[in-house]
């Protein structure tokens, strides 16, 4: 059976009315839930409500098992009508579940929370790449960067993409991070610095790989027709799409995530928004490689055209398509991609100071969970 391509029409159903982010970096002595609740308090303040207005809770489980809703609930002191935990990260999946719960009437105002203390707890990315450990570990295939080093080398082989072109991802994101008070990494980074740094997993260098950090992020999502009751300027959800591809792990080219095109097709098909309408793009970036490959998967660049696009500075402020204006996971903070969505909301509200994209009205966020699940959201200033 061929893949059917359902399209979710969620336009006009839900809006983000609160955003909260804690200090990022290290929070020794604090639990994941404590950090998450600090973020939630900030998001509630931002929305101008107290916790009694929350009738839905969607938490994100950390990779090591903290942060489930039944751990948050007793600390938060709420008994919501709808409650769930996702372990997919990136916030895209959590936002989509919130939109579904609101559209169905199961809840009206939902808190999304992620808190983690993985840096303090010394969680690492360095374990086995695959659950079939016996068939990868003996070859030294460790660290989730390994598959993406291979993916980038393949991209180089197919299209002639250069390491210097890839280096512009880390360099441009560092430029943004230096304009973002939340960022963990703010030292200047030139393309010469990048190229002079040693390989970690060739062809990737340290600057191509995110570093685990502690921190919290939370959002308040509500029904679009209630959005104006909150203090903050509402940012509307215009389109959502996902694709799960667990079986694709055996495809020859799965490391290139060919199934992301299904997400793109559903996203633009259902939202009435075209990629050319997007003023600011957010791409979850545990590895720099995600930027060129996602630009191509969603059609912002033709296959093979992302390298020149990056080298020309088109993703910088003032370029054709500003990307990861927060500094991304490479320079702002890891946070499993949650901060991208927070930044997208703040950009559309016009709150981003030096790094503000002028007249930003539409933003898009693209993410994946491991190499088997993709999601994207389009946000806008009007319903």
């Amino acid at each position, binding site marked *: 059976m061929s893949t059917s391509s359902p399209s979710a029409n969620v336009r006009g159903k839900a809006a983000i009315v609160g955003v909260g982010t804690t200090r990022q970096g290290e929070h020794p002595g604090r639990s994941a839930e404590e950090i998450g609740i600090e973020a939630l308090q900030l998001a509630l303040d931002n929305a101008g409500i107290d916790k009694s207005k929350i009738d839905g809770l969607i938490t994100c489980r950390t990779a090591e098992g903290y942060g489930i809703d039944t751990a948050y609930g007793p600390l938060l002191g709420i008994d919501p009508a709808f409650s769930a935990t996702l372990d997919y990260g990136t916030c895209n999946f959590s936002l989509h579940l919130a939109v579904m719960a609101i559209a169905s009437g199961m809840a009206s105002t939902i808190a999304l929370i992620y808190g983690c203390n993985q840096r303090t707890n010394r969680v690492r990315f360095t374990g086995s790449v695959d659950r079939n450990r016996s068939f990868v570990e003996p070859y*030294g295939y460790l660290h989730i960067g390994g598959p993406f080093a291979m993916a980038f080398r393949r991209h180089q082989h197919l299209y002639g993409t250069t390491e210097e072109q890839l280096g512009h991802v880390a360099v441009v994101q560092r430029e943004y991070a230096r304009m973002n008070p939340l960022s963990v990494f703010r030292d200047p980074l030139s393309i010469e610095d990048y190229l002079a740094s040693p390989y*970690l997993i*060739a062809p990737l260098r340290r600057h191509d790989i995110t570093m685990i950090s502690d921190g919290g992020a939370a959002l308040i999502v509500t029904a679009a027709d209630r959005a104006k009751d909150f203090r903050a300027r509402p940012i509307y959800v215009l389109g959502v799409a996902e694709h799960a591809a667990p079986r694709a792990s055996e495809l020859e080219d799965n490391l290139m995530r060919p199934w992301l095109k299904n997400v793109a097709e559903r996203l633009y098909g259902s939202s009435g928004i075209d990629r050319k309408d997007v003023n600011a793009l957010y791409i979850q970036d545990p590895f720099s490689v995600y930027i060129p490959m996602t630009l191509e998967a969603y059609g912002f660049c033709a296959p093979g055209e992302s390298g020149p696009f990056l080298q020309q500075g088109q993703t910088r402020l003032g370029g054709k398509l500003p990307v990861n204006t927060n500094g991304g996971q490479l320079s702002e903070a890891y946070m499993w991609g949650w901060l991208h969505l927070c930044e997208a909301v703040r950009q559309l509200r016009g709150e981003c100071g030096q790094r503000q994209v002028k007249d930003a009205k539409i933003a898009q966020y693209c993410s994946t969970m491991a190499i088997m699940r993709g999601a994207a959201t389009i946000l806008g200033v009007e319903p």
Partner: protein
Amino acid sequence: MSNDGRLLPDVSSPLTAPFWQAARERRLVMQHCAGCGEIRWPPKSLCPTCLRAGTVDDWKQVPDSGTIWSFAVYHRAFHPSLNDKIPYNVVYIKLDAGPMFITNVVRTNDLAIDRRVKAYYDDVTPEVTLVKFQLVP
């Protein structure tokens, strides 16, 4: 993991023992579904195409040759046993039989995508033979 700290496979698991037994005999085997004929790799207890339960008879020899799809070169040791191995390669191979296979390519610093390779059976302990590969001249 072995007693000396090396990262070694579990060769005793009933699901995968036939693979490791064949490797010791310098053969590459994979499961072939008795129902639909599909080759499945990595090993699975049932066929994901037709959902037929697998048996030990599903293991059949396949050609131990293929083509390099891509590779990474590790310059950092993410496990103590790899400290004296870096830099080392990890190579993703498209086997001629169809499946993709993670491995190391031995005795070369001249890796390239699309190069042809054939198996090199590396007896790393008396019980464990790893299926590595080497370039075809």
